[in-house]
């Protein structure tokens, strides 16, 4: 017997919220980044679940594009973190507080 889509959606919602809490709580920029990946994955899981529930391949194709954007985002974001770390010893969010207006 196959698992109803609501269960997948619940797991995805929980993953999304854990990622959001982590993004707010943690101060290390790398771990904040991992939390963003977690939230992206939760959304991907939601897309695939709805693709099955509504029987539409468009959801899966959209996840493909999300993966591409996530890969590009990680590449640029990690380059930014390395660049910040070179200038000051530490990659926490507090170290870039000079960016505030």
């Amino acid at each position, binding site marked *: *017997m196959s698992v109803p889509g609501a269960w997948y959606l619940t797991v995805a919602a*929980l993953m999304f*919220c854990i*990622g959001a809490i982590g993004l707010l709580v943690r101060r290390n920029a790398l771990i904040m980044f991992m939390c963003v990946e977690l939230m992206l*994955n939760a959304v991907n899981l939601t897309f*695939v679940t709805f693709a099955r529930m509504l029987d539409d391949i468009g959801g899966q194709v959209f996840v493909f594009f999300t993966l591409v954007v996530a890969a590009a985002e990680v590449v640029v974001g990690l*380059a930014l973190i390395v*660049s910040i770390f070179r200038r000051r010893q530490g990659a926490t969010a507090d170290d870039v507080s000079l960016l505030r207006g």
Partner: protein
Amino acid sequence: MEWAVFSVFAVAALAGAGGVVMARKPVHAALSLVLTLFSVAVFFVLQGAHFLAAVQVIVYAGAIVILFLFVIMLLGIDQEDVLDEPLPAQRPLAIAVGVALFAGLLLVAGILQPTGAPAQRGSATQGDIANVERVARSLFTDFLWPFEITSALLVIAVVGAIVLARRGGPGTTLGDDEADVDVPVSGNGSHPHVGAGSDEGPSAVLEHES
């Protein structure tokens, strides 16, 4: 059977997510992230999205987490995070926001219903066409133009990463960059950039460039 697989990997996915948030060392967080990403790949297989499951394992669990680990190693593995909060109210507030977010999602899921409109881009499960072929047909017909734009996006991301992570950082010329690299090197011909037959030192090469 499907329920058993689902329950095991749902627990694994949530445990991995919790591990990312609570791990004291970044390496442990990255390894927990692998657990979650792999569990999501299993969910994709369970729902018939075989192509995306393969891409999830290769791109996410393979490339992206390896990139994270590279950066962690580059920045120094031995440091532990300070988990003390300078702002005393932040952690309870963050957890309250997360719980409110979950409640909001459940509320929306309870109120709204899918419209049941017919599939616009072709069926995801009906018929005997393989999943990879379905995704490919949709990607190379309906979504051809977005697909081409993603290639431009990837090129831009690679160029941006090189510009940002170069030793001189953005705003420096190539000459400054080379000088930054070559200053510690002493002795003739020991630097890989200098040709094998050349007996000019790195500084001589620099003078030619500038």
